[in-house]
């Protein structure tokens, strides 16, 4: 990997960088759509690349079950299997093991789980996770980490943090021995729960291994913790992580979360949210999400966003037409998915341009004013951005501030 920071916001910690991988250059910060089963819901790879997207995520846990490593090896890896010629990232599979399997037990050796095929106890070790990811062949691969819910407290959090570091060492060993270090890049995952002391220790240990890892993810978040805690952990980690390594915040996809993370110095994020919410008929816009299922849209002869370059909006698909299709025809999901992926890409693309032009603080202010308008700004966003020198409320005496997660939804009839 070649990683180069090309611009830094003079106010916040946001930066623009170029990440050159085996399948091309991806400019950061960026959002990565999730193709869990080696397909972005309903779209062909040709459609996805035409949206201006060149880095997507596959889930190791799922691909290991289906189609299985043997098939992927025969096909020459996941890129060829799914016809995706651009950059690809795989997770370690550990997170799904814990979240989708009730009976997974973590031991020092690895994660012991019931095989979904035959119910037999099966072990996923750090070595095994890396070798599966080698077969998949993604440009970025993730270490196996010991995942605990962000709501867990007590000694288990510390245990998981130290084990994650030991597992990182095992992943590094396996990866370096494989001869794949030139084409596949291993990322470490910072754990430590919501405890600042543990996070500090974890980051320090992982920085010690910097010359053997290509980038860092901030894990163990987005699991229902308070947003105010979430951003503080992100900031703490991003502040300490090396400047010359990409930083990846896992499971982040709401627009306001993404921009706050970028301001705190995060470069990459992924989430199923934009594609999943599209299937429920929710279109994302710079003025907040639109629930196209609501009957108020049934006769609206305007696109979701007439400034949007996505195939749905630029071909003039009306909200009324989408209302007629969403949740009843797969084509409705395709159309909203195309739009939502372009929305995420525009959100991040505008951030890149603003950082390059030195106008990122203004971009943040404009975004929050448009997106939350008179509904009120989430307090946690105000606090998080104040911590990096941007006061969203500056000159906004009449803007309300709301506590809680603050996500806006189009739910009034």
């Amino acid at each position, binding site marked *: 990997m070649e990683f180069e920071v090309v611009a830094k916001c003079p106010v916040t910690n946001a930066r623009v960088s170029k990440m050159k991988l085996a399948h*091309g*250059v991806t*400019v950061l910060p960026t959002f990565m759509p999730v193709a869990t*089963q*080696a*397909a972005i*819901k*309903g779209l*062909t*790879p*040709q*459609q996805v*690349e*035409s*949206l*201006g997207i060149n880095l997507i995520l596959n889930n190791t846990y799922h691909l290991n079950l*289906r*189609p299985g490593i043997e*098939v992927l090896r*025969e*096909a020459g890896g996941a890129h060829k*299997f799914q*016809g995706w010629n651009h950059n690809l990232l795989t997770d370690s599979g550990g*997170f799904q093991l814990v*979240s989708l399997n009730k009976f997974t037990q973590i031991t020092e050796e690895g994660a012991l789980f019931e095989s979904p095929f035959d119910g037999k106890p099966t072990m996923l070790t750090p070595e095994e996770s890396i070798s599966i990811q080698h077969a998949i062949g993604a440009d970025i691969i993730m270490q196996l980490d010991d995942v605990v*819910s*962000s709501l867990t407290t007590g000694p288990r959090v510390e245990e998981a943090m130290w084990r994650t570091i030991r597992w990182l060492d095992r992943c590094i060993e396996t990866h370096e021995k494989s001869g794949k270090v030139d084409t596949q890049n291993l990322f470490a995952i910072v754990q430590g729960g919501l405890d600042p002391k543990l996070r500090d220790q974890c980051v320090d240990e992982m920085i010690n291994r910097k010359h053997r890892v290509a980038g860092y993810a901030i894990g163990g978040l987005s*699991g*229902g913790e308070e947003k105010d805690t979430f951003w503080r952990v992100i900031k703490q980690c991003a502040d300490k992580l090396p400047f010359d390594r990409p930083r990846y915040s896992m*499971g982040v*996809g709401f627009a306001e979360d993404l921009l706050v993370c970028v301001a705190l110095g995060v470069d990459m994020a992924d*989430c*199923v949210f934009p594609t*999943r919410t599209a299937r429920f*008929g*929710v279109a994302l816009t710079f003025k907040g999400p639109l*629930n196209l299922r*609501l009957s108020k849209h*049934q*006769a609206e*002869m305007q696109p979701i966003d007439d400034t949007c370059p996505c*195939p*749905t909006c630029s*071909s*003039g698909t*009306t909200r*009324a037409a989408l*209302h*007629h*299709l969403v949740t*009843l*025809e797969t*084509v409705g999901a*395709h*159309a909203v998915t195309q739009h939502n992926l372009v929305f995420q890409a*525009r959100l*991040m693309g*505008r951030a*890149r341009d603003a950082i390059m032009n030195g106008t990122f603080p203004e971009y943040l202010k404009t975004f929050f004013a448009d997106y939350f308008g008179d509904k009120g700004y989430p307090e946690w966003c105000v606090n998080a951005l104040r911590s990096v020198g941007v006061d969203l409320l500056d000159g906004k005496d009449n803007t309300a501030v709301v506590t809680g997660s603050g996500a806006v939804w189009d739910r009034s*009839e």
Partner: protein
Amino acid sequence: MSTLNFTIQTAEPLSQFTPRLGRLSLHRHEGPPAQDILTPALITTTSRGIVPHLSRDNVVATSPIAWTQVHFETFLEQTPPVLALHKGSHPLHTFLGYEPEKHILALSLRDPHDGQEMPPNTKEYVTCRCVRGVRRVSPASWRSLVLACKPDVVTALADTPFTPLPHSQKRITKSLERSTAWLADLLKPSQETVPTEHPAVLVQMAGGNEVRARKAFAEGLVERLYGKDQELVSPLQTLDEGIAGYVFDLVPLQLSLAPVAAARVEETVSSSAHERLLKASLAPLPITKPRIVHSARSPHTLLRLIQDIGIDLFDAHFAQRAADIGIALDFTFPAPYSTQTEEQHLALLPRKRENRTDLGHNLFAATYAHDHSCLAACFAGAASFPSISQLSSEFPVCLCGACSPRSYPSWIQHSALDTLPTDVGTFQKPFTRSYIHHLLHTHEMSSHTLLAMHNLTVMEAFLAGVRGVLSKVDGAKLFTEEVTRFHEVYDEHMVVFEEAKVEWASVERARGKGRLQREKPGNTTPLADSTAMSARVSEKGAL
């Protein structure tokens, strides 16, 4: 007024029931003409107005999609129907995302494939179905809906009963009277002073399973009208003068012939019965108008209808349905010659049963998990050839988005630094059977997208093959030979369809269970946050 010109291009002397080649040209009062269609040709079917599984960009990229059949009834769930609200010169095209230059939109009230029982029609209205239940549409409201949404072609309302059988003589007589009256109603010249787009009118051939009734209905169309009857449709002298083509829906016909087990009837039995009924309708009519059949069951049926009756347009319902249930079609017309060895094919041919080859591959089947070849053995992908000019000379090529995926000529740029790749517009490697097998088993929608594009393209290639043979010297004779050979090579019982349906249903069921598990609220995963949020939104949406 849109006019649909049909010119028969068969050189040989033509009789009432011989195969024929034709060219359909649509001229619109406003706007561009649509691309001509060569017949025998394909009709793409729709659901809720759209081609199932194909987003707008994929519809445009799928060249066989030309004549597209939209049924209005699904739009009746809203009052007024949203289709009738759109303005402009091609509101139906614009609203549904079709291109006037490429797509001829034909509108009918009812879905021709829906054979479910319905409440009776009356003198005043036709009953039809939308997701919110049964709706009634009067001839007057049909006329105004049609004039508002301006399709290129429209089928007049017909009184086709979907009530329990048998239908009495009296009922059939009523059906003829109403269908004739409703046709006349649609043919009435527009009262408006400003000339407006008036679609070309097709007529559904009434008369059920009675030869005499069908004949009587057809004779009524060409009968010279007098007095009030004539004044109504003046300047037309006969109803037929205002008719652009004749439509046969096989579903109600099949129901009336074999009400108990419509789907199970031996094809050969029903086909001769169909043939008799279709011929009874067509015999009194001029041979120069296009003849349209909906819901033909198989390519074998299509060939017989072309050969024995001279049908010109067929819907692709069976091929599109195949995409829903995981089948990749793999056949050609003429059927491959036996001199072609297995090695000349790029991939394994479909399964053989009692010496007859399946029409396609049930990609759900476990055998395809490790089959990394392209979808069809009969077709290569464009990427196997150095240039587009070298295509098809050596081997048929399927230019669908699955066999010959092509990167888009332009990409969206999101920031000044984004660098676009240089290989835009090039053909990529075909998607494989193993990939679609995987997508089917993981319930990914892309599987149906790829199969829909492929199956429509295979059907178009099939009909292009038919046209190719018919255009040869001595075409009719060669065609008969090739039809016989096609029947010898390919399995008509379509067992592979039944097998695929079973597997499709079991994956659907498994998914139902899995989904409950997965989306149970309260699990603390990063996904849970957004799932719960979406669930809340959708609950609100359902209010």
